[in-house]
C-alpha cells in the first residue's frame, strides 16, 4: 500500500509536469509527420509510416524516461520533501520502488497514448488494426523500464543535469554497443580482443529490445529471441535497481 501510494503520487507529479506534454506533443507531431514522409516516398508508404512512427515512439519514450526519471528523485531531495517522507514508517526501498513504479506507470500511459495515435494512423491506410506493432512497442516499454532504473540510479547521487547526461550516454552506448560484436569478429586475438570482449559483456546492449525492423517487414522472429530479450530486460533492470537501492539505503540527507 505504501509503495502504491508513492507510485501514484509520482504518477500524479509526472503527469502534472509540463515537460511531459511538450515531449508528447512533439512525439505525436513526429508520428503524424511519418504520413507526410510517406507521401514523398516511392514504394511501400505504410512501411515508412510504421518505421518512422515506431522510431518516434522509442525516441520520445526514452527522452521522457531520462528527463522525468532523473528529475523526480533529485527534486525530492532538493526540495526536501524526502525529509517528511522518510520520517514516516516506510523503508527506503519502498520509497525507491514506489518512485520507479510511478515512473514506469507514467511511461506506460504515454506509450499507450502514442500507440493509439500510431495504430489509428496505420488504420487510415490499411483499414486493419496491426496489433503486431504492439510487440515492438512492448519491447520499447521494456527498454524504457531499464532506462528509468538507470536514471533513478544516477539521480540517487547526482544532480539532474549530470544524471541526464549519464543516462543519455547509457542510451547511446546501449544502441551502438552491438558494433563491438563485429569488431570482436574482425580483430586479431590478443589484448585488444580481450578488451573488446570485456567491454561487450559489460556495456548494455539495448538493441536487444529493437524489433522494429523485423516487425515492420514481417520477418520471422524465433521465440527464444523474445525470451532472451525479456529476461535480459528484467534482470538488467533488477540489477540496476538493486545498485540504486544499495546507494540509497546508506545515503545521508543533509
Amino acid at each position, binding site marked *: *500500500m505504501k509503495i502504491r501510494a508513492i507510485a501514484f503520487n509520482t504518477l500524479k507529479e509526472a503527469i502534472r509536469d509540463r515537460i511531459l506534454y511538450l515531449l508528447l506533443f512533439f512525439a505525436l507531431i513526429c508520428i503524424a509527420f511519418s504520413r507526410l514522409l510517406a507521401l514523398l516516398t516511392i514504394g511501400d508508404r505504410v512501411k515508412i509510416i510504421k518505421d518512422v512512427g515506431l522510431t518516434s515512439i522509442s525516441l520520445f519514450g526514452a527522452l521522457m524516461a531520462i528527463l522525468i526519471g532523473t528529475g523526480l528523485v533529485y527534486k525530492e531531495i532538493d526540495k526536501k520533501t524526502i525529509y*517528511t517522507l522518510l520520517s514516516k514508517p516506510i523503508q527506503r526501498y519502498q520509497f525507491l520502488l514506489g518512485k520507479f513504479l510511478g515512473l514506469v506507470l507514467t511511461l506506460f500511459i504515454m506509450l499507450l497514448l502514442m500507440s493509439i495515435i500510431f495504430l489509428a494512423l496505420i488504420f487510415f491506410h490499411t483499414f486493419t488494426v496491426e496489433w503486431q506493432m504492439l510487440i515492438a512497442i512492448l519491447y520499447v516499454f521494456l527498454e524504457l523500464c531499464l532506462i528509468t532504473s538507470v536514471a533513478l540510479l544516477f539521480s540517487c547521487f547526482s544532480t539532474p543535469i549530470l544524471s541526464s547526461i549519464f543516462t543519455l550516454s547509457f542510451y547511446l552506448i546501449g544502441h551502438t554497443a552491438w558494433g563491438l560484436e563485429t569488431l570482436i569478429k574482425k580483430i586479431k586475438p590478443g589484448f585488444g580482443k580481450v578488451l573488446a570482449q570485456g567491454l561487450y559483456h559489460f556495456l548494455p546492449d539495448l538493441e536487444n529490445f529493437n524489433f522494429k525492423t523485423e516487425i515492420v517487414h514481417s520477418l520471422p522472429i524465433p521465440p527464444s529471441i523474445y525470451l532472451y530479450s525479456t529476461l535480459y530486460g528484467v534482470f538488467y533492470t533488477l540489477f540496476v535497481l538493486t545498485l540504486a537501492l544499495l546507494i540509497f539505503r546508506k545515503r545521508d540527507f543533509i
Partner: protein
Amino acid sequence: MALAINIENLHKSFSLGFMLKKKKILKGISLEVNEGEIFGYLGPNGAGKTTTIKCILGLIFPEQGKIELFGQSHLSLPAKARTGFLPENPYFYDHLTANEFLTFYSQLFSIKKNEREEKIKDLLQTVGLQQSAGLQLRKFSRGMLQRIGLAQALLNEPSLVLLDEPLGGLDPLGRKEIRDIIVRLKEEGKTVFLSSHILQDIEMICDRVAIIVNGEIINQGALQDLISEKILFTEIDLSGVEEKELEGLGEFLSGHGERGLLKVFKEENVEKVLELVQSRKGKIHSLIPRTETLEDLFVGMVKQK
C-alpha cells in the same frame, strides 16, 4: 518516568567542499527526553540542532552513538509510526491540494480509508486550514505551509512530535497559534521536541531545555533549575527628580525632560530611589524587577563557549 528519546554519545561529521574536508557537526551529544514533556532544543544557527533531529529520524546515519525512541531503535518502523515531524521551512508537493497531500501521507501510515476523511477534516480544522482544503500547496503562504506541515506531523496521532524551528518566519499571531497547538499537544499527553532559537517562545512553553553550541550540549535541565530567580536589576520609570540627584543609585537608560528610565542594580538603592521620588513629590510610572531570562542564560553560555 519513561523516556521518549534517549540519545547517548552521538557523533556525526560531514565531508564538505571540493577537498571533502571533514567537519565535526555533533561531538558526543547525550540527551534524555521524558514522555509527556515539551523539550526545548536551543542553539545558534549551525550548532547541530537540525542534524540531531535528522539523526533521530534516520535521515542521517551517525558515526557513533545510540538513539532510542520509546526504548526501541529509532530506525524501527513501530518507533517511526509513533513519531511526527515538521521540518524547518517546510516544502511539500506543490502539485497536490491540501486534501490530496494529507491523503497521500495518511496512506504511508496505513490509515484506513473510512477513518482517513474524518481525520483529515479534523486536522485541517485544528490548524485552521479547513477553507483551503482544495487549494494547491503552491498557492499556500509560508504560514499556511507551516500549518499544513504541522497537520501532516499529527496525522498518525503521534506520541512524539519533533518540530524543527516551527515558529520561524511566522507573524506574532501565527506564532501564538502554533504555540497554543503545542501546549494542547502536551495536554493530550504527547511529547514535544522543539528546536528553536526564538527563546521567548521556548521559555513560555518548555518544561526542560538543552543548549547546544558547536555540536556539544553545554547545559540541560528543567527551566526553573537553569534560570535563577534572583533579581538581576530593577527598571524604574520615574519623573519629578533631577538626573543629577540619581547619580550613584543607578544607571540612567533614557529620558526626556523630567521623565526617565533608571536601571538599579542593588535592592537597597531601589528603596533610596523610591524615597527620593516621594520627597521630591515625583511620580513612579512603573517598577519592574528583572530576573534572569533564558536569553540571558543562553547568550552568557554561547559567549562563554
